[in-house]
Each structure stands twice: as C-alpha cells, then as structure tokens.
C-alpha cells in the first residue's frame, strides 16, 4: 500500500475522476434521450447501439484501423524528423529563421481538407498521400514548438557557458537542446492528437482501406451506429498515442516534472 508507484497511480486516477464522471453522465443522458424515441435510431443511435455495432464490426474494422495507424505512425515519424531538423536549422542560422518562420506560420492558414484532393492527383491512391497529410498536420506544431524552445534558452546560462570557453556546438548540445525538450514534447503532444484525424482526411479523398474508408462506406449504407463506432475507435487511437507520448515524456525529461511540481519530494507523514 505504501508503494509510491501505487500511490501515484491512485492519485492520477483521482485526478481524472471528474472528467470520467462527466463523460459517464453525458453518455447516460444521450442513452436516455435515445430511449425516448424522439429521434429515429438511424439518425442518432444510442451509446449502447454504438457499442453493439462496434463489437459486431470489430473484426471488419481491425484491418482498417491497422491501415490508418500505419499511415499515422509513418507520417508522424517523418514529421518528427523534419520538424526537429527545421527547428535546429532555424536555431543555428538566423537567416533561415527570418526566411522560414513567417512562411511556416502563414502556411497554417491553408486548409488541409482542400489540399488532400490535390495530393491524390500528385501522389496517387497509395500510402503516400495519406502520409503526406499526416506529415503536414504534425510537422508544424513540432517544428514551431521546438524552435521556440531552442530560442527560449536562458541567455544568462549561455553566457555562463561562453565564459567557460564552450564552443557554439557545445552550447547547443549541452544547453539549448536539452532545454528545448519540454517544448518539443508539447509540440509532439499537439501533433499526435491531430495525426489520426489527418490520416482519415487523407483516406476520405481516395483509399481502399482505412478507418476513413470504413466510415464513408458505413455512412453510405446508413449504418449510423457503425460510423459512430469508427469515430470512437479513432478517438481511442488518438488518446492511446497521446498517452504513449506522455509516458515517453516522463521517461525522457523527469527533471522537468521535478522542477515544475517538485513531485519527487516525498512528504513523510
């Protein structure tokens, strides 16, 4: 019982309790409303309908979900590589910052939905256009957050390292980069929450497999409960990815949490 990990787990659960309770209440309300029959079931199925449809179509949905996850993970991985590379480049070369930063921000006004059909024309119906959509969605938050993190390095600490005779590269390696990790993870967490949806948008425009395709087909057949089930799976996958990144973050930058919350101080009661 005194195992600190157990206690931390219990604390984390208690912290989430209000959110879980609200979710349960909303689902219950929805279920009750559906029971009144005011809206036909094929327009708005009840949560239990969605659950049944999901269980029934689980086998059918699995390969679609796997395909979507493949597109997501590949796109995300490439976005991490590209985002980090650009952030580092922007940090090292001021000219690159002044050239790229405004364009990067402006590029975010382009609606991805409008771009997706073009990507099909350019890259065909295979994996590539979906990966590109995921990449476009994820690249920006990673690059900008990491660049801001690098740029936000404490100038006094940089001065200290310079006074010790550190080279530019040593300052980057030992101060700027480690100091930018929290910002990188913030960007990555934003990116993963959009990533699965990015893949689905890519699939809507043209694909033979994936949750996006599954949704379109179910919708065309008026299997509304199935559409909802696919939406729920999409959310679950996004949340799972998010939690994975959050766990990695805890492992990668424990000092950040120690500094922010002093949680490593174990009070002795």
């Amino acid at each position, binding site marked *: 019982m005194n195992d600190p990990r157990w206690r931390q787990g219990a604390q984390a659960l208690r912290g989430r309790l209000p959110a879980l309770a609200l979710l349960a209440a909303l689902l219950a309300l929805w279920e009750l409303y559906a029971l009144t029959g005011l809206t036909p079931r094929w327009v708005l199925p009840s949560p239990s309908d969605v659950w049944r449809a999901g269980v029934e179509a689980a086998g059918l949905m699995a390969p679609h979900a796997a395909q979507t996850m493949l597109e997501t993970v590949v796109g995300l991985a490439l976005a991490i590589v590209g985002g980090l590379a650009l952030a580092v480049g922007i940090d090292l070369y001021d000219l690159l910052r002044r050239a790229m930063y405004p364009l990067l921000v402006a590029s975010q006004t382009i609606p991805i939905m409008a771009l997706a059909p073009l990507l099909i024309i350019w890259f065909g119906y295979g994996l590539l256009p979906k990966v590109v959509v995921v990449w476009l969605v994820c690249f920006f938050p990673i690059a900008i957050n990491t660049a801001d993190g690098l740029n936000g390095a404490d100038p006094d600490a940089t001065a200290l*390292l310079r*006074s010790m*005779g550190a080279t530019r590269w*040593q300052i980057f390696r*030992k101060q700027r980069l480690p100091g930018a990790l929290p910002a990188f993870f913030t960007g990555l967490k934003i990116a993963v929450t959009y990533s699965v949806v990015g893949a689905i948008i890519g699939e809507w425009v043209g694909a033979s497999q994936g949750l996006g395709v599954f949704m379109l087909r179910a919708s065309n057949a008026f299997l509304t409960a199935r559409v909802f089930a696919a939406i729920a799976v999409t959310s679950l996958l996004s949340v799972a990815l998010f939690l994975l990144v959050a766990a990695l973050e805890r492992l990668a930058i424990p*000092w950040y949490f*120690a500094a922010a919350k002093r949680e490593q101080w174990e009070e002795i009661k």
Partner: protein
Amino acid sequence: MSRATEPESGAPKLELRHISKRFRVGGRVVAALEDVSLALGAGEFVTIVGPSGCGKSTLLNIACGLLQPDAGEIRLDGQPAGERLGKVAYMPQRDLLLPWRSVLDNVTLGPELAGVSREEARREALADLPLFGLEGFEHALPAQLSGGMKQRAALLRTLLLHREVMLLDEPFGALDALTRLQLQEWLLGVWARFRTSILFITHDVEEAVFLSDRVLVMSPRPGRIALELAVPLPRPRARHMCDEPECIGLREKLLEALGLDNPSG
C-alpha cells in the same frame, strides 16, 4: 630572460586598466563604467562594493571576456589578454545550474567542456562534495536543493574550472542572513585551501570587510573606484574581529564612501 608569453613574476593575476563601458538603452546612452582600474594579486581576496546598478556585474563581464570595454586594457598575468573567454572562472549573480543535470553533472560542466574524462572529473568532484556540504546529494536535481546548497554547487562548479582567478558576483546575495554568515566562513576555508585569487562582489559592507584583503568602493553610475581600503585584520579571520573598533572604523569609512550616513551616529 623571460619570453613574452611567460607570466611576469609579481605581476597581478588580473589587471584592469582605465576601463570604460557605455550601453545604448532605447536610444539613450548609459555610461556604466568610467575609467575603472584595479589589480588582483596572486592569492589575493579583493571585494568590490557599490550601489545597485553601478556597473559591478558589467565589470566582471568585461573581465571574463563576455563583454569588451569601449576603452581600456585587460591583462592576465601581466600580459594583454584579448581573448579571455575560458581563462578565468566566473560565477554569475544567479546560480544558473542546468535543471536537467544532477548536482554532480552540473559541477563537472567545466571539465566536461574541456574534454576531461568523465571518470576523472567525477572522481575529483566527489572528493570535494563533503567540503561543499553536498555529500549525498550528488544525484539530486537542482530543483531539489535549498538556496544555500545551490549557491555552494555553483561555487564548486566555478572552482572545478581550475582557474587562478575567480570572479564571484554576489554569490551570497540572495541568501538569508544566517546561511550567509555560514557560507562566508566556509568560503574563506575553501579559499585558504585552493589558493586562488578572488574578485568578489557584494552589497554588504560587513561581508566585504570580513572576507577581503582589500575593499574597493564603486560610485553610483557611471561606476568609478571611489575608495580603496586595505583590511589589515589577521588571517584566519574570526567573527569576533568584526566587533573590534578597528573593524568598525573600516565599515564606517566604507559606508561613508557609499554616501550613507554614519549608522552609529
């Protein structure tokens, strides 16, 4: 016959000659330092006191090479020192411990940058930890240290740079009175053991007298040396010396030079 690169024996470790520095702040030009000269001999402990904003930190930044003076010359071991970065040990006003590094990794930053092997640097640092009151905290993160421990860690980091000259910018400025008194005595112990030359900055006249061989008083902006005062108290210093008339007299002279009224009058 000594070659030009060899230190002249008896030359000051650090010498600032006629240093002036101005800053441009929002279109206005602020003169921070005007014709400041000082010398720090081998093994000497010199303290600068002065009101806030008179240019003390600017002076140290110039001495360690982070800033260049508008006029004047800096000499190390009697030789003009153009590129000074990495040649003197500088401890800034804030502790600036890197929050992601353990105490041990923070204090060995200097050797690490210089390419000393990790084991060697750690071995030496570990041997010094008890003296610095950090034993058992080698793997703690800066966020888990008290204010006094952070200052001691920052000081050990400065010491492990192994420079003959140490520039300490108000190392005890942010500490409570009690911790401050303890760390003053402790610093004298460390200094006696490592025999470096220290240029120390403080606002505290009592601290200045207790620690130093010489005290320099700086005038308000633009900073100038208004008074130089030798402290003829014997070493090792003891706290009770501060209550003797000679010492009280020194403090009063310093306060007067700082433009403060005689506190006992």
